[in-house]
């Protein structure tokens, strides 16, 4: 699948933003958020900013962005519509929570409950994003049970990394935050590796034979393409990356997204203080590079069954 830049930015940034909102809400309900206006302000701006920039970015790849509001209407059947609706709903408890924490310096009572609701909705929004991809049967790399855990774990991981760095900057980093960061990085990495193992080893259910129904006559090979230049289908669904690049990009993604942030945060946990804060900020920056690479691969490595009509096999070793 063609990795549209706007969609990669959207899913990564809004995933991180929703993750941070979820972490903040859970901290509030656990009574762990300090009354510190700058900390509150920067956290909220960063979380809602990432979500908002991500959502706006997602409209850039539309043919008619001015009609984007229509996408709220079909939540009964469409995961994309559900994602839009839940994303918007998340703003309501988020703004109540933000008002309490930033303006009144309170994150208890009604504000903690808003925080909890905000956490639930934020994770539901990420679930809807995953649902969009998971629901697409023609793309086997997406239509499987590993997509949802991946999106949730990666969102939670980027959220806790952001929170740990922010808490460090304002002097509130705790051992629990570091421990949660290390645990979520490990969990997300396991999900990602399991996903890659699944898409690498699962044989394709659809073949040129099932696509044409000509299997009884033998193996089917494209003899003559319907057109001499690329059409929309080939541009959008027929995206190719060299296998060797996929491997290198996976290594980059694992290294920057998970391994280096883990090591930096483990070191930050031990050193603490200003050095610890510096290390956690570095971990966030590196993980962003890794996650953007991971998201690019999520699209670029996914093959669509329509390419079977254009002479490809889905489980062929060469992309």
């Amino acid at each position, binding site marked *: *699948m063609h990795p549209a830049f706007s969609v990669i930015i959207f899913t990564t940034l809004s995933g991180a933003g929703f993750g941070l909102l979820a972490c903040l809400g859970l901290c509030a309900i656990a009574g762990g958020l300090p009354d510190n206006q700058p900390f509150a302000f920067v956290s909220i701006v960063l979380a809602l900013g990432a979500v908002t920039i991500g959502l706006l970015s997602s409209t850039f*790849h*539309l*043919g*008619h*962005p001015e*009609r*984007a509001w*229509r*996408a*709220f*209407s*079909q939540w*009964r*059947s*469409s*995961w*994309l*519509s559900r994602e*839009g609706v839940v994303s918007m709903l998340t703003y309501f408890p988020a703004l109540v929570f933000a008002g309490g924490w930033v303006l009144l310096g309170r994150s208890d009572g009604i504000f903690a409950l808003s925080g909890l609701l905000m956490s639930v909705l934020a994770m539901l929004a990420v679930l809807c994003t995953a649902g*969009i991809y998971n*629901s*697409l*049967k*023609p*793309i086997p790399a997406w239509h499987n049970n590993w997509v949802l855990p991946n999106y949730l774990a990666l969102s939670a991981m980027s959220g806790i990394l952001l929170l740990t760095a922010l808490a460090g900057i304002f002097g509130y980093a705790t051992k629990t935050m570091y421990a949660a960061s290390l645990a979520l990085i490990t969990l997300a990495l396991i999900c990602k590796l399991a996903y890659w193992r699944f898409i690498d080893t699962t044989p394709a*259910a*659809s073949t*040129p034979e*099932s*696509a*044409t*129904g*000509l299997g*009884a*006559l*033998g*193996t*089917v*090979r*494209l*003899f*003559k*393409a*319907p*057109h001499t*230049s*690329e*059409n*929309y*289908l080939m541009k*959008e*669904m027929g995206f190719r990356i060299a296998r060797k690049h996929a491997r290198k990009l996976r290594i980059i993604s694992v290294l920057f997204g998970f391994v280096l942030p883990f090591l930096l945060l483990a070191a930050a946990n031990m050193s603490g203080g200003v050095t610890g804060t510096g290390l956690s900020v570095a971990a966030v920056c590196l993980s962003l590079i890794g996650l953007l690479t991971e998201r690019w691969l999520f699209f670029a490595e996914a093959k*669509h*069954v*329509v390419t079977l*009509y*254009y002479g490809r096999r889905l489980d062929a070793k060469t992309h």
Partner: protein
Amino acid sequence: MTSLPQQTGKQLGLVIDLDVCVGCHACAVNCKEWNTGGVAAPLTDINPYGEDPLGVWFNRIHSYETNKAGKGTTVHFPRSCLHCAEPACVTVCPTGASYKRAEDGIVLVNEDLCIGCKLCSWACPYGAREYDYDAGVMKKCTLCIDKIYNENLDPADRVPACVATCPTSARTFGDFADPNSAVSKLVRERGGYDLMPEMGYRPTNKYLPPRKKEAGEAPALAPIMESQQAGFLGWVDRLLSSV
């Protein structure tokens, strides 16, 4: 609404006979001709006379060759919207632009509601939807809805453009909900089948497989008859053969 109708009155669609199709692309050309002036008009072409033309077509004609232990067949294969009974292209649409008509099962796009998110084209295993980069909306086969119901046309002409133009009558249009329609009979008699049944979209359009080649067919390049030489050389040939 992108929720699907429980049941459609008629179930209009096509039967495509792969035994008869000669791969002439006339159906694709007439489709383009009719529909670039019809409800989905225009079927935009970008750089049509340049090096790398890119345009919207509702019908694409592939040619495949099959290979079974060295024996092969060439099969021409028209590919267009199958107007599925369970079209995920409709249910994924966030705006309600895509819909399946309850009265006849035709899957359509309301271009005024389409935001051009392209998700429907991702949801279609058959590549039926092509995005119009110029108009910023998705386009697809309408089963010539502006032709099949057009009362200004002679009743014989109220069939999709691809069907009307096919020189070998490889395409048949009709109502699959009626067990006595020409399409239903063809499917029964010739073993009409679904493309990619494993996807579970339950396509309306059916394909008829190429007929089995006649048994006892001569292998390629075998001599048609033994030569019977006359005269002296024939006598030598017969003599040497009998030794």
